[in-house]
């Protein structure tokens, strides 16, 4: 099986925006998960003209692999600039894989308050789930082997780029 080396991230983002448009209202809040999810969430937030400010989440303190790898990436402060209580939250990530990051993100959100609902939007669902987690909004779904990695970047003109790369080491 040969995976395409480059995916058109802008096209996937447009599709994701269209899926979300009928699903959001004045009570909806987007929360992007660092790093890639924040890039996607910023674009979605602008395109959907949401009034509730954008939230960002760094799940480092909630990860389930701390005992194995420690705190080895530099955490950034999470910012949830709105009342979580009673809110309809949409978590946004670039790539949905094992589901462990989303589990961590859900736990963190609940430490801010009790939302009315929480749903998940991902640019790409690459399969390989290890937890009972599913995304309601996805740009595209594909199966990628475990030794490959999807990497989201912004190019010089701020356009999103998604590429398939070999995984360097066991994460």
């Amino acid at each position, binding site marked *: 099986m040969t995976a395409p080396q480059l995916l058109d991230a802008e096209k996937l983002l447009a599709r994701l925006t269209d899926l979300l448009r009928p699903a959001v209202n004045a009570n909806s809040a987007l929360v992007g998960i660092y790093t890639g999810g924040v890039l996607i969430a910023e674009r979605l937030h602008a395109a959907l003209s949401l009034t509730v400010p954008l939230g960002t989440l*760094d799940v*480092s*303190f*909630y990860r389930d692999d*701390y*005992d194995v*790898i*420690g*705190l*080895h990436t*530099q*955490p*950034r*402060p*999470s*910012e*949830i600039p709105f009342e979580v209580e009673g809110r309809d939250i949409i978590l946004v990530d670039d790539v949905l894989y094992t589901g462990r990051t989303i589990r961590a993100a859900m*736990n*963190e959100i*609940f*430490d*801010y*308050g009790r939302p009315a609902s929480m749903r998940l939007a991902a640019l790409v669902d690459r399969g390989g789930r290890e937890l009972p987690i599913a995304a309601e909004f996805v740009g595209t779904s594909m199966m990628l082997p475990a030794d490959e990695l999807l990497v989201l970047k912004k190019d010089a003109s701020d356009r999103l780029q998604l590429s398939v790369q070999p995984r360097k080491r066991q994460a």
Partner: protein
Amino acid sequence: MIHNPQLNKNGELTHLLTVEGLSADIIRNILNTAESFVSVTEREVKKVPLLRGKSVFNLFFEPSTRTRTTFEIAAKRLSADVLNLNISASSTSKGETLLDTVDNLSAMHADMFIVRHAQSGAPFLIARHVKPGIHVINAGDGRHAHPTQGLLDMYTIRHYKKDFSQLTVAIVGDVLHSRVARSQIHALTTLGVPELRVIGPKTLLPTGIENMGTHVYHDMAKGLKGVDVVIMLRLQNERMNGALLPSAQEYFKYYGLTQEKLALAKPDAIVMHPGPMNRGVEIDSAVADGAQSVILPQVTFGIAVRMAVMSILAGN
């Protein structure tokens, strides 16, 4: 390179014993991580599950309220189980040695020891003794070091002044007896502060302090001129042997920080103090409670910095 007992074979921090020998990268990593914990402490639930199931022992062989409490809060906000041992009042008075105490607590599955001891070097002895996977944090040893205080001071300075590379910082008072001052001097020079001054009477400045990259002043008026940060030190009466000072009143007259003396610093200079303060000895109440004082924010930031240190150590 000399072996640094704080680092593991990958060069990662596994104990925090002193700021001396820590790279600027390690210090910045601690400060950046602390910034994330500051945002945690502003939430509804001020707790993260990082150290769930871990046991942290506060081993205080010397009295302390603020430091012990902030370590305890920090550990609890990381979801660790915390045990406070006031050792001066227990086993050692029955003759148990320091390392026997540590072995016994290790047998109770301690994951981390926070150690304060009147003897310089005691936390090093414990760090060398414990099994791999057990971490030691120095919470003040004799006159030697108080690294988390030094780091929280760096956090405070960065919070208010952003960039270390343009700053003039003055440390004022009883440097001779101060483990805090030593940790601050190491941290400030490592982070690239271009002008570091120590101000105090000759009897309270250690010999050779100028070799630590500092400029020495005995006159407050000269030393405070144009500084961005004023760090006051506590006059450590309990550590003084012999007559180093005529009287507390005399000390206040020459080295106590008043509004008049502070006016010589930059108008936006901040005033810091590691606590506990001797009001009317090293600092006037009008300054301690004044607009330029960041003494209470130091305490708040101290919790986040200690959370950062604990979570980095326990993961290495």
